[in-house]
């Protein structure tokens, strides 16, 4: 019999929070992570050296495993029809929260009842009220700053732990201009300190939230991995779990390879897979046996299916007066309209937001591509950046069976494991939403007296969700509302992969809330408390 109560696979936000909670309850927890440990100062040096300062720029690759890179996603995902769907992430202690902007809006109550309210998508087996206490806990654990007295559509039973992050000066200028048109631009809740919180300083506005916060003011799950270690959790980084082993319907072990390719077997009474929406289904599919030829937890055939994300629209535009972007956090404000309304019967909702990333590097190189800009480029750059701003939209998508991840037997990672391939297309519902929000952003730009300069569209906002969805029925879902696999009573899944519908909120806070909820469930099951 194993001496480990719970083996958690994946040291991102879901896995590290869960590990801490269970260890604190007196359980013996072992946390496995494919990547290695990160160092913030080293990451900052990496950022400064990078030519393309994207959100993966600061962090090292681990030679024994690979992740989808923004520049060369085909290396991981293989070729896809254009424009391709390429959600990027990183591996390592803390996972992709190492590189997130820290936005933590809650889901709206209607996001959990999309089908009941609007006849589209799918309902969650949970409702908002059931998750609300866990949102409160998650906000406390991550350290969320927000305006507790402002109704953003998600009713609260407790205030935010910290006061809101103030809008930038440019956002206040926009908010003032747009107020008379009935639009409200407000500060988003964010896991970014507005005062000292849990030994982390308040935000200093360095404007590099992605890829690396220089001070640690923005939460990342590296905090909870360190906490897990101090609580006594066994943390084994550099272990790539490649197979789950079953006896009958019970999962008895996880097999993990070290960087040399040597495999070790880890046993536990309960196993939790917390590798989010790409690597979690990949592991379940790689664990296929004669008994489970379609992969573990897959009697419904839903593992890898229902992949969702937010379609990402981005508009940089000139402003008639200086608004000085790039001062403060990379993202602060979002609009209150767009996320909810009767329109959701016809088209997708969206979260509309302001980007405060001045993107000086690419603006500079872009400017210098034109010799007409070579005279006094410093002044020219100052003028163009100060008179520019950016808006974006993250448009919801619906779960669709055909949007799926499978294993590609022809392509292998450095340890010889099959890489995923993806089929992905957005529905007409989301296309109508995309068109609507595209026009809305152009309207806002016009109301501000601006002129669009650059438009960017991507099928991914790097929020993959849905590939092991939760539901009440084993026939069409992978896990139940607690995250327990229908097919394997001691196997659990936590992360965005269990979302039945994605709504418009950035997923991390909901992932954290589900993780804390699962922790309570496992504590009750394993300790009787």
């Amino acid at each position, binding site marked *: 019999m194993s001496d480990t109560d719970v083996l958690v696979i994946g040291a991102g936000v879901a896995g590290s929070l869960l590990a801490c909670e269970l260890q604190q309850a007196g359980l013996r927890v072992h946390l496995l992570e494919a990547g290695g440990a990160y160092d913030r100062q080293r990451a900052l040096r990496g950022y400064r050296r990078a030519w393309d300062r994207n959100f993966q720029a600061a962090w090292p690759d681990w030679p024994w495993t690979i992740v989808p890179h923004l520049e060369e996603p085909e290396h991981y995902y293989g070729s896809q029809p254009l424009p391709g769907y390429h959600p990027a992430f990183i591996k390592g202690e803390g996972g992709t929260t190492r590189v997130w902007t820290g936005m933590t809006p809650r889901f709206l109550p209607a996001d959990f009842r999309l089908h009941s309210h609007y006849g589209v998508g799918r309902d969650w087996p949970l409702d908002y009220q059931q998750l609300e206490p866990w949102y409160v806990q998650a906000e406390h654990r991550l350290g969320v700053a927000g305006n507790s007295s402002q109704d953003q559509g998600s009713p609260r039973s407790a205030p935010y732990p910290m006061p809101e992050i103030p809008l930038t000066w440019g956002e206040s200028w926009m908010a003032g201009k747009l107020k008379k048109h009935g639009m409200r631009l407000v500060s988003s809740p964010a896991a970014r300190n507005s005062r000292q919180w849990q030994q982390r300083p308040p935000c200093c506005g360095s404007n590099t939230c992605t890829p690396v916060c220089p001070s640690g003011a923005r939460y990342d799950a590296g905090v909870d991995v360190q906490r897990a270690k101090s609580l006594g959790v066994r943390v084994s980084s550099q272990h790539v779990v490649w197979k789950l082993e079953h006896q009958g319907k019970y999962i008895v072990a996880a097999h993990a390879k070290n960087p040399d390719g040597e495999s070790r077997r880890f046993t536990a009474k309960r196993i939790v897979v917390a590798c989010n929406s790409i690597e979690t289904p990949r592991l379940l599919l790689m664990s296929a046996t004669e008994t489970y030829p379609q992969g573990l937890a897959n009697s419904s055939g839903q593992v890898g299916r229902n992949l969702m994300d937010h379609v990402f629209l981005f508009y940089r535009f000139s402003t008639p007066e200086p608004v000085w972007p*790039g001062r403060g956090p990379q993202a602060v404000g979002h609009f209150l309209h767009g996320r909810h309304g009767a329109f959701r019967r016809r088209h997708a909702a969206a979260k509309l937001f302001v980007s405060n990333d001045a993107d000086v590097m690419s603006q500079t190189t872009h400017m210098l591509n034109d010799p007409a800009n070579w005279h006094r480029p410093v002044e020219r750059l100052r003028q163009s950046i100060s008179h520019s701003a950016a808006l974006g939209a993250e448009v919801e998508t619906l779960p669709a069976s055909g949007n799926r991840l499978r294993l590609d037997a022809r392509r292998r990672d450095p340890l010889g494991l099959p890489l995923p391939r993806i089929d992905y297309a957005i529905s007409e519902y989301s296309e109508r939403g995309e068109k609507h929000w595209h026009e809305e952003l152009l309207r806002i730009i016009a109301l501000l007296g601006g002129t669009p300069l650059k438009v960017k569209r991507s099928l991914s906002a790097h929020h993959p969700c849905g590939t092991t969805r939760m539901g009440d029925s084993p026939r069409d879902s992978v896990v139940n509302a607690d995250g327990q696999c229908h097919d394997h009573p001691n196997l659990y899944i936590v992360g965005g992969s269990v979302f039945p519908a994605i709504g418009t909120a950035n997923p991390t806070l909901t992932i954290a809330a589900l993780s804390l909820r699962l922790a309570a469930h496992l504590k009750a099951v394993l300790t009787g408390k």
Partner: protein
Amino acid sequence: MPHKHTPDKLRRQLIRAMAAAGLSIPCYPALYSVKAMAAMPASKTRILWLFQRLTGSRRLNHHFIKRLLVALEHEPSGTDHLRRVLNKLAPEPLDDGMMQLPIDIDALDDGERWFVQHLLVSLMTGIYFHEQRGNLTLSYRYALMHDALQDIRPVPGTCQQSFGFWQYPPV
């Protein structure tokens, strides 16, 4: 022909040039680098004058410039390109009145245009782009793209200001 100077002569020239260009005296010691200048096709003063003309900035950090010159020196045609561009854009005697004029793009051939853009990208971004050898970071903090905004926001990735400064307009 490369200019040949004794250290003392170069020192005097540099002090005069810096005074004329409004550069601060602390810049001087690193500019005085005979080794870095040995392979250069012109005096440091003239090269610095070219960089100032190209960028419109007189706030060029000396360590940054030194690293750029070393990088150019290691390019197969780096010093040759520099000589050609100097001859067209920084002809002697140097005329400060010319500093205010746009450079004559039409006077440059394709190779010279490429080189001017390469210089500008290096000076503005602080990164010497090199596809084959890999990029070289010349300077992060003193890259002119940060310098362009240094009075309104901290250099990205550094913590020089207190919480909430961004809600107020720059002074």
